């Protein structure tokens, strides 16, 4: 998968492109977890170009959410495709994450 990273003020945005599955979740983990462990607290994950997520991807997102909860940080997911949103709902992930329609709304919420 491709991960495009951007920082505006204290907000880190990661655009995820491609598939988040057992093969690729390690790539996101290698980027996201060190940022959280390094003290960054505000994250936006943009799902506009995310085509697929499996339980391996969900597991990583839960790990990130747990770490951020401990650090009093926040993560917002945006621009999620309908079928990915449904996987979040089935998994009971919808109440855990703030999910918004687009990046602008996510930025507004974190600023």
């Amino acid at each position, binding site marked *: 998968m491709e991960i495009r990273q951007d920082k505006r003020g204290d907000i880190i945005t990661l655009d995820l492109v491609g598939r988040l*599955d*057992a*093969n690729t979740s390690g790539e996101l983990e290698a980027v996201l977890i060190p940022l959280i462990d390094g003290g960054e607290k505000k994250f936006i994950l943009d799902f506009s170009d995310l085509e*697929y997520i*499996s*339980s*391996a991807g*969900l*597991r990583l997102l*839960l*790990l990130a*959410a*747990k770490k951020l*909860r401990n650090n009093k940080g926040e993560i917002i997911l945006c621009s999620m495709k309908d*079928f990915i949103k449904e*996987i979040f709902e*089935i*998994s*009971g992930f919808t109440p*855990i994450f703030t999910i918004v329609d687009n990046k602008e709304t996510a930025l507004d919420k974190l600023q």
Partner: protein
Amino acid sequence: MKVLTAHIRNDLREIGTITEKFENFAKDNKLSQRIVYDISLCLDELITNIISYGYDDKKTHEIEVKFELHEKELKLTLIDDGKAFDPTKKEDPEHLQHAVEDRPIGGLGIYLVKKLMDIVKYKRVNDKNILTLTKFFKNSNHRI
């Protein structure tokens, strides 16, 4: 009825191979993106489980994957010679309503499969796991 049968090795990279074969089969038969997504996810979760937890040795094993497309349903059969494992007996995670601090990491794959498919049947025959999953086409949106 259209049938696609494939045999893959117990190597996680084979998941991409089988997914691609299924995607081509789905395209030829004009199945919707939605059906393709649900089936691909189930394939991924189940084959990942078989390959990761099914074998005690380091030998090469074969997994048979069969798709049967009927008028109103798609049937998927997975046959492997790994350890006996009945996913239908696996209890659903109890933590779905828990707050993030309390949720254990993991245990979601088989739960997703059971939620996305309409029927999941398991049998053990001749030291093989045979898992049959059926997805009903509930309305007209299963084809493009």
